[in-house]
């Protein structure tokens, strides 16, 4: 006997998931896309507005050049071809948070096309690539608030006119986890090139998914549905799974999947069809007559490309090549560019890459997590940490003492050497001093000492422990071992 759920997952195994994603990203400009209003998040409602973004009669849009720069940066980072001439278009629909009754977007001549994003490596070693169909510029709508005031809806137009890029992928992903990887890679790239806050909670990154199912081996695409209303990457993955299972069950019953919009309900963990008015509109696109064609010169495009920082994929490849680190470690260290920079500066001063990596991934990230701060403001500079690692390498402090020293460095910002001597954490390596502690331990534990001296070598560990304890952890355990070995009997 099988449960319903088992049947569903069996069904799912007979089908392949096909996913394409549409990602909207707010560009980090100072002013809006077509007027001079601030884009800052969290201002009082309708404060960041003017006649243009309120769509007062007679106003006209003027394109923000900074938005174009950021969009072209993103396009280049995603290896898109940037069109020298692209066109703005009006996407017409009525909604109270869309002041003009149309959104200025791009339609049949987008800013950039034909990009790609590497999301991993296939089993044969070749890169797993998701194609980027297009990247275009558009403006954000305002926000409607339906649950704040009884009986009425409120409109906040602070967000209206904030510049966005929409990044549309090819249907190249084959599982929910591939979709998740694509999104995390995409977010990482956008963070690296500093074009957006890419914060899903604040809405600076939003994802809609197109998903279809087909029997394994089938090459034609099945009918897709669009899934909306996800507010986290894991939500996207769960929504895709849910919608995929729904489609598979339908296909298995011989039903046809209808092209429609589904909404993800994160609380109930299910998808449901959007109301009919949220289904597909006729947007009546036509070229925006208020804006001339957007022309960007080839030399300028090339300059923007040359100005891009090292991108995550290149950095990952270089880190594993230069530092001989494991893929998982490289992944952690290159998660964000400032962390990778920190690591590189650390290695420059303390060339043991493996140790450096372990410290960054361990103590440094733990301290950052605890404080909630960013690596850029981290009080322990790479050179200071390198000095601490030097002390460990040279045996001047123990590994456990180093951790204590590090904690104090984080709090005080003092150099490792100063803390080590102030706190008495320098390791004792002096043979006389160590010898005294050994004598004292032998005197205190005469039975064990006698058995050890008679050749019971396995007691050495216990005795080292006694010595370490007596020294308050300051004895260099290596030296203590040497000393004890010298005194061992049976010899």
């Amino acid at each position: 006997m099988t449960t319903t759920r088992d049947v569903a997952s069996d069904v799912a195994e007979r089908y392949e998931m096909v996913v394409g994603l549409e990602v909207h990203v707010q560009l980090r400009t100072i002013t809006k896309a077509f007027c001079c209003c601030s884009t800052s998040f969290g201002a009082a409602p309708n404060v960041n507005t003017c006649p243009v973004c309120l769509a007062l009669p007679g106003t006209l849009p003027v394109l923000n050049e900074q938005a174009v720069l950021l969009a072209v940066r993103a396009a280049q980072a995603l290896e898109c071809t940037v069109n020298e001439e692209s066109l703005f278009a009006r996407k017409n629909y009525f909604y109270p948070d869309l002041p003009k009754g149309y959104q200025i977007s791009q339609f049949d001549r987008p800013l950039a096309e034909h990009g790609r994003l590497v999301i991993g490596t296939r089993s044969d070693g070749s890169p797993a690539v998701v194609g980027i169909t297009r990247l275009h510029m558009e403006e954000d709508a305002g926000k409607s608030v339906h649950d704040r005031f009884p009986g009425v809806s409120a409109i906040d137009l602070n967000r209206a006119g904030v510049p966005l890029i929409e990044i549309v992928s090819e249907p190249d992903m084959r599982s929910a986890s591939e979709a998740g990887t694509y999104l995390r890679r995409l977010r990482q790239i956008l963070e690296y090139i500093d074009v957006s806050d890419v914060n899903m909670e604040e809405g600076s990154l939003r994802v809609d998914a197109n998903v279809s199912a087909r029997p394994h081996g089938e090459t034609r695409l099945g009918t897709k549905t669009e899934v909306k209303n996800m507010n986290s990457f894991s939500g996207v993955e769960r929504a895709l799974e849910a919608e995929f299972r729904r489609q598979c069950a339908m296909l298995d019953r011989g039903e046809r999947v209808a092209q429609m919009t589904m909404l993800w309900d994160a609380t109930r963990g299910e998808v449901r069809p959007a109301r009919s008015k949220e289904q597909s509109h006729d947007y009546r696109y036509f070229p925006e007559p208020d804006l001339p064609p957007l022309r960007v010169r080839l030399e300028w495009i090339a300059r923007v490309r040359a100005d891009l920082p090292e991108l995550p994929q290149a950095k990952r490849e270089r880190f594993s090549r230069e530092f001989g680190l494991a893929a998982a470690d490289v992944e952690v260290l290159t998660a964000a560019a400032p962390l990778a920079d920190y690591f590189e500066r650390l290695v420059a001063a303390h060339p043991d890459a493996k140790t450096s990596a372990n410290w960054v991934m361990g103590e440094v990230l733990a301290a950052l997590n605890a404080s909630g701060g960013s690596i850029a403001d981290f009080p322990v500079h790479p050179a200071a940490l390198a000095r601490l690692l030097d002390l460990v390498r040279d045996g001047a402090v123990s590994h456990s003492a180093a951790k204590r020293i590090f904690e104090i460095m984080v709090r005080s910002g003092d150099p490792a050497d100063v803390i080590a001597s102030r706190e008495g954490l320098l390791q004792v390596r002096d043979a006389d001093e160590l010898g005294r502690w050994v004598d004292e331990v032998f005197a205190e534990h005469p039975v064990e000492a006698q058995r050890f001296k008679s050749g019971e070598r396995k007691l050495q560990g216990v005795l080292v422990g006694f010595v370490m304890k007596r020294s308050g952890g300051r004895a260099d355990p290596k030296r203590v071992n040497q000393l004890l070995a010298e005194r061992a009997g049976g010899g």
Partner: protein
Amino acid sequence: MTVPSAVAQVTRSFQRMSDVRAGANGLNCILWTDREAALADARAVDARADRGPLAGMPFAVKDNIATLDLPTTCGSRILEGYVSPYEATVITRLREAGGVVIGKTNCDEFAMGSSTEYSAWGPARNPVDCSRVPGGSSGGSAAAVAAGIVRMALGSETGGSVRQPAAYCGVVGVKPTYGRVSRYGLVAFASSLDQVGVFGVAVQDAAIATELIAGRDARDATSVEHAVPRYRDAADRPLAGLVIGRPREYFPPTLDSRVAALCDRALDAMRAEGAEVRDVSLPHTSLAIPVYYIIAPAEASSNLARFDGVRYGARAAGEGLRAMYEHTRSRGFGPEVTRRILLGTYVLSAGYYDAYYRKAQQVRTLIAEDFTSVFASGVHVLFTPTAPTPAFPLGAKSDPYEMYLNDIFTATANLAGVPGMSLPVGRLDGLPVGGQFMAPHFDEFAMFRAAFGLERALGAEAHA
């Protein structure tokens, strides 16, 4: 001769307004005025060390151009009582030049019409014959100039809305090149065709006003950086050497022969002054009206979406959002605006876009190329009738399509983006008839040179 004070000029304008009964019970050409505010502006001009080139000259403004203080309703109920918190670039420029706004003028609702009968505030009347329309959509501005209230007024054009009423009222009306004058503050009807235009009693008034409002504006991305010559200087240029094209498509056999005769008399007068007149052809002219009535409504359907009752203007109650939209818009917009929104929505719909909008844009390119090639052939300006007939009686045109045909000689310039102007060339049964010049893009100077020359050559005949 000393120029009278701004206060004296403005006072005289208001006196004339009352003498000719410019308000709702008379010509109905002026919708909104504020005498005290205008006088305060006039006093401010008089107090300036430099009163500017206009030196306190009063001017009237079409109701679809944003002004501070006075309402900007576009002749529509949906904007009843709406006062703009900012002013149009053209208003700022004229005020800086010493001009004083004395009132907002009646117009067809959202500039959609050719008679000023489609105003929510009642039709305006032609000062030459009060039983007739002043033309439209800028009929109120044309009438205010013709009635002697102001020497100068602003209007707007999408398809002849300055030139045709200028012709009907016997004044001068100019539509500059698309991109020559900022549209910032002009309430959009069809953005790729709209352009602010000017009216003047004589060519000189229109030349000065055009010169003052022309030039690039950072707030209008479609305005163009292009040197603005002193159009007034065109008055000193003789007609000798000017090559005038007479496009045969604008003199069809169906044209009232008396209108054609007045235009040919004007051509003869210019020839007598040394101009050369050539027969030319603009073969795609007949397609202008169908193309215009696809493109203009398409853009209008989008431009007028913002009048939704949410942020400003009239809002009608309704159960739920959809009902609020429907009631607000169906009560706020008049029948002609509704008709064009429906038309425009239709031609932009999925499945019809290619057949209508895209095709219309392709034909629009052919119409523009007609002008490019005729001007490339050595013709400096074109001369045509402005409208097929003089002003018609109020209520005479009940069929919208018949009304649309009024734009047959003017819509081409909007579609091609070239400048055009109308000036009086004579009268038929006491009613003014206008002749039209059109010139290459940004060559308003050639157009003014021709217009000054024709005005000189015709003298008093222009109004006889």
